[in-house]
């Protein structure tokens, strides 16, 4: 047998073999189960009662629906060949200037009790393909663009005193004043760096640096770029996102099985002891945020309680805040009474008891200014 170096093509060829059309019984079975699920959507206004219809009208309805869908698909540019992607990252890059809609004007929530918070939030947004750091009030008003460099700036993180912002520009760590002035380079390595955050005493930064194939190591550096050292790495997989609880206690997101095993762990940098705070066998956890008093951790989970959860800093007391968390960075607001998280192209707010979910801003990576 001849060798074929194009293994990716062969794998794609292998994957392409197989049915592209679902048997009719899939939709028919679903329709039956849908009828049986009526009680679960008590507000339904138009129950067509498939089971109560004679067979011919059912077929007619299915045929009519098929015609409508096909027409829609054709008119919308062809969904059948490859379903149109909706809400992907590209739409973020093409998004309009972030305007900071207020919760009441965003149209995302009709909840009169929508969560609100004071303070200021730094975040990054892409306008015409250029990612920059912005600052806005806690109600989404008074948006200020802090970076104007043509490079891509993202991952803002506040100093403990709320006077400086660390961020990433083209894969290196920088720091600037809260008004966007005094931009200072901190790192200049050829490896990609990401997700900077300040040490609790504000004297240094930690960040993730690319390590091997699609892996990250956590480093620490003084604000002037001196004394850089690696704090932690995992040979299997470590996420770049890490936080220092104290000078010698590090929160990390690791995967010891190299896929499907993300969990949050606390690393004692003095003893090297690593304590898992969550168990990936109960569902993977990714993205986390430490409360300002370091007593609680908010995180995303794909376990039985899928969504945004809170636990005590020792891993106990887990409780679900909302199932409506989809993915993306999480942040505690400055007052500690609400959480913000990125859902798609939007930064949303929600109270700790799970009420008041509302959209705040179009953007990514929210970071709330301490003391505001």
């Amino acid at each position, binding site marked *: *047998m001849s*060798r*074929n170096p194009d*293994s990716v*093509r*062969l*794998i794609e*060829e*292998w*994957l*392409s*073999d*197989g*049915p592209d*059309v*679902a*048997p009719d019984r899939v*939709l028919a*079975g*679903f329709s039956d189960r*849908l009828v049986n*699920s009526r009680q679960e959507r008590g*507000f*339904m*206004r*138009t129950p067509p009662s498939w089971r109560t219809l004679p067979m011919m009208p059912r077929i007619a309805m299915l045929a009519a*629906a*098929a015609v*409508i*869908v096909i027409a*829609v698909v054709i*008119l*919308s540019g062809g969904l059948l060949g*490859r*379903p149109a*992607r*909706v*809400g*992907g990252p*590209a739409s973020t890059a093409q998004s309009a200037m972030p305007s900071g809609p207020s919760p009441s004007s965003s149209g*995302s*929530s009709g909840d009169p009790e929508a969560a609100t918070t004071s303070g200021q939030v730094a975040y990054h947004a892409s306008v015409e393909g250029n990612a920059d750091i912005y600052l806005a009030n806690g109600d989404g008003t008074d948006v200020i663009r802090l970076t104007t460099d043509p490079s891509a700036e993202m991952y803002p993180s506040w100093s403990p005193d709320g006077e400086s912002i660390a961020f990433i520009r083209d894969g290196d760590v920088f720091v600037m004043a809260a008004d966007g002035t005094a931009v200072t380079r901190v790192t200049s390595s050829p490896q990609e760096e990401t997700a900077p955050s300040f040490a609790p005493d504000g004297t240094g930064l930690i960040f993730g640096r690319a390590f091997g*194939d*699609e892996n990250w190591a956590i480093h620490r550096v003084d604000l002037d770029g001196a004394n850089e050292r690696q704090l932690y790495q995992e040979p299997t*997989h470590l*996420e770049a*996102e890490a936080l220092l609880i104290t000078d010698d206690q590090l929160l990390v997101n690791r995967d010891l099985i*190299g*896929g*499907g095993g993300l969990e949050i762990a606390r690393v004692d940098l003095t003893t090297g002891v690593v304590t898992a705070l969550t168990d990936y066998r109960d569902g*993977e956890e*990714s993205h986390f945020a430490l409360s300002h008093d370091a007593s609680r951790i908010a995180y995303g989970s*794909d376990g039985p309680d899928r969504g945004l959860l809170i636990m005590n800093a020792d891993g106990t007391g887990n409780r679900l805040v909302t*199932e*409506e968390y*989809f*993915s993306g960075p999480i942040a505690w607001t400055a007052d500690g009474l609400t959480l913000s998280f990125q*859902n*798609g192209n*939007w930064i949303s707010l929600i109270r700790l008891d799970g009420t008041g979910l509302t959209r705040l801003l179009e953007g990514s990576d929210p970071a709330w200014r301490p003391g505001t």
Partner: protein
Amino acid sequence: MEQDLVERARAGDRDAFTQLAWALTDGLFAVAHRMLRDSGLAEDATQQALLDAWRKLPQLREVGRFEAWVHRLLINACKDEIGRARRRDVKLRLLPLLERVTPDASLSIEQRDQLERAFDRLSPEHRAVVVLRHYRFWSLGEIALSLGLPVGTVASRLHYAMQALRAALEADTRLSDGTAVGGAR
């Protein structure tokens, strides 16, 4: 137009949801079939994903992300199917997919067999990224968004999974060439 259907379905319009289901079912089933390698399980997972979508649709705020969201529900349904099968200690039958083997396929039967075995050893999470990337041709960002994972995690899983599948192909090549696995290339 699709967003209008999603809005209506979210508000409880079952007809609107039925139209969405019609548009999505083939694609969902195809993905589930690639993940599970079993028609019956794929049918169950597809139905469950659609049912979950109907139940949970009122919670979906971003109607523009409906398709990505449904795929996440499908992947979760597939994981559940795999978990149930393993709890029953039933090894998922590796389907030879005889119903549609490309006539001028470049893959040999031995290579297909190696890929099936290697794929069977992958975790559901690894299978998901392989199928979404190399069957649906989604970007890493789109996969990350759909599965609710950091892009780095998606990239890492894809790297690991493709490495395993490539190794299976290379092992088959070495065996076919009469070279011992792990020996000189």
